[in-house]
């Protein structure tokens, strides 16, 4: 459901495909709306709101992102729609939720990543904390909305009853920390090119992103086994012999030394060679830092069908990420995003 004149605000948000700011050429809109139909309807008018209600009366699921003031203006509450469609599953997605001290606060991706204790982990100590670019909190909350819908549908299959459900970005982000939030009373800090520690003891050496000949490489780790393999690979078994791995965590001098040894080990090797050698010969979680266009060309992603090419009457041919799973070794085919109001005659 899009409202006139321009439809979904993401149609006016970049990145745009070549040749201009055009409501059918926003890559953000095109990616997030594959497989959907579009109905253009001004539901701010009484007439329009009636049409919306008619559609909702017949719907299984309503997903909306109306904030408190919009809800008040429209006279909508948790019961409005469920009251005339008892099987309806309504999911509200908001930054902070419809109740609580921040319920009227404004938000944006960087604000969410700050408040969700994500930014505090990313970047160099003493320098500005960093966000992950794009719309991460929106994507993650959207995924959770999908989770809520799937579970509510499962329940409705048994009970016949719908539900009103609330997904918030902040609560979603607060779920995405690996360590308990109290972290033994310590603060999880930014750790530059290294993994941020999960405990007050600090992180293991050799868990970092380093420069190779033709770009960067990320080394994963954090266990005795991986540490020993890494030392074997570097030809430095002396670094672990007779030592307990946990005693080496947080040793900055050792971490610096291991960085240097790894850079030496990578000398003369391409990222692809490093990936293959470290992963295959040494069974280490090591991978190249790929740019987005390298990702699209990556042989494993191509093998998996992780991307699909779709044509679009205005935007032309582009590549889109597939849904993140295959079923019985088959990919679900994507279909292109709709044009603004393309399906009006079908639904109105």
């Amino acid at each position, binding site marked *: 459901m899009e409202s006139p004149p321009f439809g979904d605000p993401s149609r006016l948000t970049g990145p*745009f495909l*070549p040749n201009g700011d055009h409501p059918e050429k926003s890559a*953000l809109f095109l990616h997030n709306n594959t497989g959907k139909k579009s109905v253009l309807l001004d539901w701010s008018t009484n007439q329009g709101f009636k049409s919306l209600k008619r559609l909702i009366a017949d719907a299984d699921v309503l997903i909306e992102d109306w904030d408190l003031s919009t809800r008040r203006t429209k006279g909508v509450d948790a019961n409005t729609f469920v009251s005339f469609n008892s099987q309806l599953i309504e999911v509200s997605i908001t930054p902070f939720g419809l*109740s609580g001290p921040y319920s009227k*606060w404004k*938000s*944006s991706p*960087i604000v969410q990543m*700050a*408040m969700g*204790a994500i*930014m*505090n982990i*990313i*970047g*160099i100590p003493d320098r*500005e904390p*960093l966000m992950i*670019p*794009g719309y991460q909190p929106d*994507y993650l909350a959207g*995924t959770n909305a999908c*989770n809520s819908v*799937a*579970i509510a*549908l*499962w329940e409705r299959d*048994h009970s016949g009853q719908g*539900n009103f459900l609330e*997904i918030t970005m902040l*609560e979603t982000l*607060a779920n995405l*920390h*690996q*360590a*308990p*939030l109290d*972290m033994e009373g310590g603060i999880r800090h*930014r750790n*530059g090119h290294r*993994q941020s520690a999960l405990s007050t003891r600090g992180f293991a050496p050799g868990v970092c*992103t380093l420069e190779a000949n033709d770009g960067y490489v*990320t080394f*994963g780790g954090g266990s005795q086994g991986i540490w020993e393999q890494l030392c074997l690979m570097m030809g430095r078994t002396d670094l672990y012999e007779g030592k307990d791995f946990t005693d080496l965590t947080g040793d900055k001098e050792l971490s610096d030394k291991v960085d240097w040894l790894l850079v030496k080990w990578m000398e003369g090797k391409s990222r692809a060679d490093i990936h293959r050698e470290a992963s295959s010969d040494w069974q280490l*979680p090591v991978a190249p*830092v*790929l740019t*987005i*266009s390298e*990702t699209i060309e990556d042989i*494993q*992603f191509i*093998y998996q069908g*992780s991307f699909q090419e779709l044509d679009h009457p205005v935007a032309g041919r*582009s*590549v*889109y*990420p597939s849904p*993140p*799973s295959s079923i019985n070794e088959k990919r679900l085919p994507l279909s292109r995003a709709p044009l603004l109001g393309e399906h009006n005659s079908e639904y109105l």
Partner: protein
Amino acid sequence: MTTNGALSKFRILDLTRVWAGPLGTRALGDLGADVIKISDPRIPLDSSARVNNKLNRNKRNIGLRLDTEEGRNIFLDLVSLSDAVIENFRPRVMRNLDLTYETLQSVNPTILMCSMPGFGIKGPYSEYPAFGSTAEAVAGIVSMIGYDSDRPLQTGLSYADPISGLNVVWSVVSYARRRARKGIGCHIEMPLSESPLGVVGEYVTASSQGVSMPQINGNKSQYFCPHGAYQAFGKDKWIALSVTSDDEWVSLKSVILEKELQNAEYDDFTMRKSSEKRIDAIIADWTQSRNPDDIVELLQKVGVPAGKVTNNLELLTNQHLQKRDYFVELEEEKWGLQKYDGQSIDGNQKPKNMWHSMRKVGEDNYLILRELLGFTHSQYELLSSNGIVGTE
């Protein structure tokens, strides 16, 4: 409505370890599923950092040696009584145990299996190990983060893991619905490295038509200005703010009264963007002497998106989340009453008074074997003494 949670009649055998898988099965358990975690009895879960404890609440635990014939048979007997099996091993592990989808199907033709390999069950990297931190690198995420264009930085949080964990939930439940309606199971393959592709999809689509990626540039945005984190008063205290419209700019300059910001030229995004460094310096000058909470309060009052760069301890005591009853306290045998994040997936969750902390490896051995497979106590004792089942 069932009182034990929406998924209370759904049984999952959970072979996942570390993070992505356990986060997903934790959510399924919070929503009421009977999650039976199958652990290697030789490897304890409990530790003082409590990372496993956090991710494995609301699951039962059986310590079972899958690499023994008897252990494997017990597992297959459990498969025949279960709805789904979720695992995140490297592909060869399940192959070597002869516990592939085909084998599971032979004892339960409608079983759902969800595999979460690093890169794929087949393909050139299929046997390469992967972690959340390396998966985010191949998915293009790391190439976008940093201060300068020549130095990408990893997220530090193994971002591919939590995204994958969330994706498990809808995938498994959606195919569970199909199974309930049509009586067919399936094998869901969800590689760790694929989940992050969706959260950078707009860049994938744009890049595929030759649009160049924005250069790594701290927190700067192509579309919003000002946009970033600014140092506040106190050690490592920061606030983040973003002006996402010209109206919000007008609101911002009504709070930060510095004369230069009042320049009407700045009311236009393009003009602000061309003077971004200068504007950032003025804002930073204003924020550095102020308490972060006060800054956020002032800015939010006039409708400017702003928030404090919060650390894990502050998040745990966040008043908004407390008011919304988000957190949960669980009693742990070794560590006492511990406070954890709740469950952000709204729905008919298992009532909080029925939530339980992580069970130790093997804690439910006898109960599961007796209840589900009809083992007598002496049969169980024999299994224990042979090391087929064991406890932490």
